[in-house]
């Protein structure tokens, strides 16, 4: 008798709570289309940071560009979302980036291989755009030829 009396309430409790949790259960991440973005220049000229190397190194190159980012947020309209900028690590080694914005997106910085939050809040428009001034820094010894930095964007929605 005792085992059967114990088992029945446990099953009821599971069923009740699962039903209550279901609408809030899954947060998903989606790639965001930035196909309408418009860079002001096709190529960013990298310049040595210092006017000469030191005896052992001193090898950072810097570049700056401006891009009008246009993120298609239509699929998540009226939902709460967090949008991240992600930069895959290039073959030429460590790259860091930092940027300023006009205020619609968040300024910030990231190291290639990581992502950084650039928007958090209700998605109220079908696209989010901002003019971003992007500074990029790399190891000049390893950056031996033109390199493509494939910035990507992803959204977490609830």
């Amino acid at each position, binding site marked *: 008798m005792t085992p059967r*009396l114990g088992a029945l*309430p*446990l099953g*009821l*409790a*599971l069923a009740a*709570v*699962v039903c209550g*949790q279901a609408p*809030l*259960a*899954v*947060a*998903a*991440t*989606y*790639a*965001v*289309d*930035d*196909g*309408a*973005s418009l*860079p002001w220049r096709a*190529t*960013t*000229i*990298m*310049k*040595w940071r*210092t*006017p*000469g*190397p*030191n*005896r*052992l190194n*001193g*090898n950072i*190159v810097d*570049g700056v560009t401006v*891009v009008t*980012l246009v993120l298609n947020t239509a699929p998540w309209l009226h939902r709460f979302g967090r949008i991240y900028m992600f930069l895959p690590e290039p073959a030429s080694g460590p790259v860091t980036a930092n940027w300023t914005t006009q205020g619609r997106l968040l300024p910030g910085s990231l190291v290639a291989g990581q992502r950084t939050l650039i928007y958090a809040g209700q998605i109220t428009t079908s696209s989010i755009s901002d003019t971003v001034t*992007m500074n*990029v820094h*790399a190891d*000049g*010894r390893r*950056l*031996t*030829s*033109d*390199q*493509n*930095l*494939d*910035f990507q*964007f*992803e959204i*977490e929605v609830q």
Partner: protein
Amino acid sequence: MGSHSRRGRGLTVLGFVLAPAVGLGLTVSSGSAQAWILTTTAGAKEIYLQVGAGTYNGGNYNAGGTPGVNATVNTVSLAVPAASVGNGVAQAMTSNSAVADSFYDGYAVCNPPTQVYIGGWSRDTTGAATLTVTSPANLTSGADTIPFSQISWTSTANGDATADIAAGTFNGGSVALASIATNTWVEDCMTFTYKNTAVAAAGTYTGTAVYTLSQP
């Protein structure tokens, strides 16, 4: 009591079972285009060589100075007493260079006038730069000559026991002095010696050695 106890166990199990589902993160491609790719270039080639006098504008490198142009051609010389000409006793030479300090940080690398500063760097991602010196076959005084190979040099620097730039002897052609790795500042001080094994007529013998730093 029994009922409360069982409900408690039920919630504990529930948390364990549902935790993965609540925390689940899904990465789903929307299948849409992603367009913005930032293309960066390699840093531009740059090069700097200083033999004797040089110029850095705005202070030393570590204070934000930038390399400049200096057209000075320094002279290394000696006067051999008539009684000693060609006796095989080497004679120390001296220079009119007053450069002691490195433009890197102002450190007193050399001891002029007996030593002549030589330093340089290269920014080139395709390979190391090559430092050479070329000289004509002879020093000349009118029609009289002394082989340039009568002059040799040693290489050293204050605070650096290992020379980066090779010692050697002029040979009437090109002599390799150093391979300078990209983004590396190399500097030393040359001390010149006249071998004094040549018997030559009285006169002032001159010649110009040219130092070259070249990138691949």
